[in-house]
């Protein structure tokens, strides 16, 4: 009888924790909820990532599970908005997030989606120190938040196998990006909580290329993610890297 009660107490605690994480997962994945801007941007991010991976590793995106056999790390995985698509395309995915609360949330959603993803509360530096190696490292909208970008990108290089691919996106630093990303996104549109970004930490494309080279990687491509407020849609641009942009880099063999 007493054992029963004890078990029940544990179950009750677990159940309420799980309910909380389920609610957070639902919030992360609600296309019209708090993370709406991220969901709206996700198709162009995925288009860029999938095209780069397919080109680098000779995969056919029209095939079923084209990324089978590739080991991929998603740094700053959040609720798994990039990890899940990569797993669905067949990659073996490790999702890492420095925010501990994101891990159970991402795990619960992956389970609901029927996907196997290894989510860990850890950092790029810790994974590199443990000697982990990947074919692909996704480094999306992280570098503008770290204290030492060069040390961070060096850890990313260590995480790549020779010939491996890093996709890194961030925000440009100029008057337009200040207007769009800080004033527009945080204050006017309320897309992001105020204080999400520190404009002084934004990096220009040339600065990022230099950082990537200094970290020992070869940058091979850069494109802009451009938001059109009239069509209310994102597109990939060869020339307009003025606010959001993305790069692809290879670790020399």
């Amino acid at each position: 009888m007493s054992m029963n009660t004890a078990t029940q107490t544990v179950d009750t605690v677990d159940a309420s924790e799980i309910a909380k994480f389920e609610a957070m997962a639902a919030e992360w994945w609600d296309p019209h909820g708090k993370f709406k801007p991220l969901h709206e941007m996700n198709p162009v991010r995925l288009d860029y990532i999938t095209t780069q991976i397919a080109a680098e590793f000779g995969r056919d995106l029209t095939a079923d599970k084209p990324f089978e056999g590739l080991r991929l790390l998603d740094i700053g995985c959040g609720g798994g908005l990039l990890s899940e698509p990569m797993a669905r395309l067949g990659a073996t995915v490790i999702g890492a997030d420095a925010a501990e609360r994101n891990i159970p949330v991402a795990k619960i959603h992956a389970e609901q989606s029927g996907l196997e993803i290894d989510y860990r509360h850890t950092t790029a530096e810790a994974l590199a120190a443990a000697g982990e190696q990947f074919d692909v490292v996704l480094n999306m909208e992280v570098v503008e938040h770290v204290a030492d970008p060069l040390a961070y990108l060096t850890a990313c290089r260590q995480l790549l196998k020779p010939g491996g691919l890093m996709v890194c996106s961030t925000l440009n630093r100029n008057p337009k990006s200040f207007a769009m990303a800080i004033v527009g996104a945080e204050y006017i549109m309320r897309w992001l909580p105020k204080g999400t970004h520190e404009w002084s930490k934004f990096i220009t494309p040339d600065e990022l290329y230099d950082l990537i080279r200094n970290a020992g990687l070869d940058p091979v491509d850069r494109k802009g993610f451009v938001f059109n407020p009239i069509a209310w849609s994102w597109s990939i641009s060869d020339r307009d890297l003025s606010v959001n942009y993305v790069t692809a880099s290879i670790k020399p063999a």
Partner: protein
Amino acid sequence: MTHDADVLIVGGGLNGPALALSLATAGISSAVIDALPEDTRESDTFDGRSYALALASVRMLSALGLWDGLEDHAQPILEIKASDGRPGEGPAPFFLHFDHAEIEEGPMGHMIEDRYLRRALLGAMDANPQITHMPDSMVTAQEVDTTGARLTLADGRALSGQIIVGADGRRSGTAERAGIKRTGWDYGQTALVCAIGHELPHNGIAHQFFMPAGPLAILPLPGNRCSIVWSETHARAAEIQALDDAAYLDVLRPRFGDFLGDIHLAGKRFTYPLNLTIANAFVAERLALIGDAAHGVHPIAGQGLNLGLRDVGALAEVLADAKRRGEDFARLDVLERYQSWRRFDTAAMAVATDAFNKLFSNDNPILRVARDIGMGAVQSMPGLRRRFIREAAGLTGDVPRLLQGRPL
């Protein structure tokens, strides 16, 4: 998480099978729930029904590998002549003339009989391992939740999939069961449809006469045959439909004129009450509507099937692109991309055909003069005329890849 098929398509007409075949090219499996029995679909006798396929629709059928087998049965529309007319009178002095030689893409459309198009779609579906055709099946219930979509059929069978697509026509049960309401109105007109044979060759010319009661379209079929679509008030149409064939032809002859010699019936006669009915939403959780289930427009410009195939091309492209990105294509934000793509086009077409019909379906002498002058004006401006042709051929706007003749 395993489903009977990725997509459950309700409706075995033309759009449903076309969607199933389009999705299969992107590795997306489907089940097509068809109310009609197999032998009805397979019948090869001409029942009088045919379609005007816009150039974009022809390109789509090519992309799906169907056009090679259809082309020999299709009649290219080389010219379109539109004129204002009253029964027993000759055409008005001003009339519109669209010639395919004015655009570089080739014939602006083709006429194809239902029996050929239907059987080509059916044959391709049956040969495709990714498609399960379920003839003689009625849906009685549907439900969706976070894990998938389920249908219950009249014989008690149950089916599960990622999403349900309603391709079940103007009175879509799929839309109704999902609680999607419709907006629309009755035109007070019924379309009379039949095929006729005639003495003289039509030379690939389609005619549209704007009569007081409504438009009369004469669309060329292979040989000395034409498909006729003509509109009358509901009451008058019912009277005409009740006549025997000889009396029916007596009503048609003065409207038709004698420019193709003597005429006779070459198939069954049909009537379709004309109304505009647009679903208030084209998508819901795990559900999308295509074709007339989304938008039944006035068939004045023969754009019903063409609009439907554009839906098919757009939905297939949205789902295929999502799948290739690794997205869960059943998510509402993915389906909403289809809705926002198709909504504008649909509204524009509905308003255009509606206004066109209101302008032309009356005997107001002032309007009659105005439209004669208008037609003359369009006729005298090649640029504007070319725009009309490209619009009718489905070459304008954000055209889905399949309708450009490209693979998904």
